[in-house]
């Protein structure tokens, strides 16, 4: 058994939790519900996007909290680390799988919201491809950020602090907003770019944030 195998075992066990499925259905219903309320409204698509920016981080937080098992991120792998599995690589694999799961599920949430309102908001409705891309990068970047946060603190509660900071600072366009995914998600959804960067830089910045957060989390965990 190697670290990748160990991570897959842990991730599969943690993901097969009915409570997590319930949380995803709740997130989906909240997106669809808002879409239903805004049916036919000219601002419907914008409201759905705004809601998505709130739902995706919360969903990513629940996902990481479940993967970490309510403690620090490395605690989920600790029983196998004790018998010789590399903690660092296991956590990297675990985080990558959580990022992929968050990206897929957030893309599904975004697509459902888009499908519900498609055609009702006229030219302001974005293309499906763009919606999927924003949903996926948003989900993955939040999973990476909260995963990094889960390596801080005795109980891995650093993710909450990072989430609050993201909500507080990510709404700006100054340098203070640069480390937070929210700023780039807003940019991709049509808001003012962070520090006057070109509009396409939002996707690149989110990918860089994912890499940096995952790398930092790996450095923080001993082998």
């Amino acid at each position, binding site marked *: 058994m190697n670290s990748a195998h*160990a991570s897959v075992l842990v991730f599969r066990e943690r993901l097969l939790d009915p409570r997590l499925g319930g949380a995803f259905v709740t997130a989906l219903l909240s997106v669809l519900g808002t879409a239903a309320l805004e049916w036919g409204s000219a601002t419907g698509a914008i409201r759905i996007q705004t809601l998505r920016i709130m739902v995706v981080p919360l969903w990513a937080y629940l996902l990481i909290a479940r993967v970490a098992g309510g403690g620090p991120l490395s605690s989920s792998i600790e029983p*196998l680390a*004790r018998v*010789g599995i590399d903690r660092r690589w296991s956590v990297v694999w675990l985080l990558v799988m959580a990022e992929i799961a968050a990206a897929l599920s957030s893309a599904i949430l975004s697509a459902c919201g888009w499908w519900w309102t498609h055609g009702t908001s006229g030219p302001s409705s974005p293309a499906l491809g763009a919606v999927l891309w924003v949903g996926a990068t948003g989900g993955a970047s939040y999973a990476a950020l909260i995963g990094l946060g889960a390596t801080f603190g005795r109980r891995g509660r650093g993710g909450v602090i990072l989430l609050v900071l993201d909500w507080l600072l990510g709404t700006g366009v100054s340098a203070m907003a640069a480390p937070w995914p929210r700023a780039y998600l807003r940019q991709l959804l049509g808001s003012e770019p962070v520090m006057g960067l070109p509009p396409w830089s939002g996707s690149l910045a989110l990918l860089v944030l994912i890499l940096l957060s995952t790398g930092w989390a790996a450095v923080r965990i001993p*082998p």
Partner: protein
Amino acid sequence: MSVVVLRGAQFDLLTPINLELGPGLHTLLGSPGDGSEALVGLLAGSQRPRSGRVAVGGRDPGTTPEVRRSIASLLPEEQLPPGRSVLRTLGLLLQARGGPDPAEALASVELSHWASRPTATLSRAERRALVFSAALATRAPIALVLYEPLADIPGIPRTVALQRIQAFAAQGVCVVCATASPEDAMALGGSVWLLERGRLATRAPHAAALFPSKPLRWRVRLGQPRELGGLLLRRQEISTIEYDLARSPRELVVCGVDPAHTALIVLEVACHAGLRVEAIRAVMPSLEEIQAATAGAIRGAYEQAYQQAVRPAPDPGAASS
């Protein structure tokens, strides 16, 4: 050759500790409040010291997966890897180490009947028993680091656990057992390190050497304790008799002038009176009594050395006159 080395290692309740342990059996006698849990966590590689260095087989178990693979450990609290049944979970633990067949490992500690049991139904103590069975099945370990291996382990007979631990020690493996029970320390054998409030107070070649020098007491169990107590009171060799009607109506605690002969005197008196003794066993001193006695001995030695150091040298002139 030292297998386990701690140099100024500090963590949680532990003050900086220096310790070197070679092959064989070593018992750390102390409560969790004395730092035994922290010390076991450091040696097992599940914790890292705040300062100082820990090495097992020359490398840090906290940062070296290969070393952890060769350390068979049992912690106070055990979480299990994912696995629906006990057999599958144990298989994962052994597979990571390249160990034997899990069914074989369960059979060797008489836990075969647990094989199909769902892991989720295991209690805290049963999880420890399962991890203990994995630890005992480790092939060619560098060290065994076990927290309370003879207590709170349901399912595994005490004699089996004891035999397996002592067999590892006899093969030249460094076995470190932490316990708060002087009785278990006696049963385990090997050298004993007394932990007290986060520091290593003293070392003894065996547990009995740490016991306070006050007379040993014997707990006697029989049907007519009052009759026996009355008879024993007439014997000069018996110094005290304790009888608690409310808590232990069938037990006497007897203390004699000569600890070695007290049990024989009790049996002789009971035999003459036709009383049937069901059990007789020595009452071990508690951990607190051992720690207090050791602290007293250390203080006594210190004061003696201090008095010798400050005592004025005899005047040579006065001696000659």
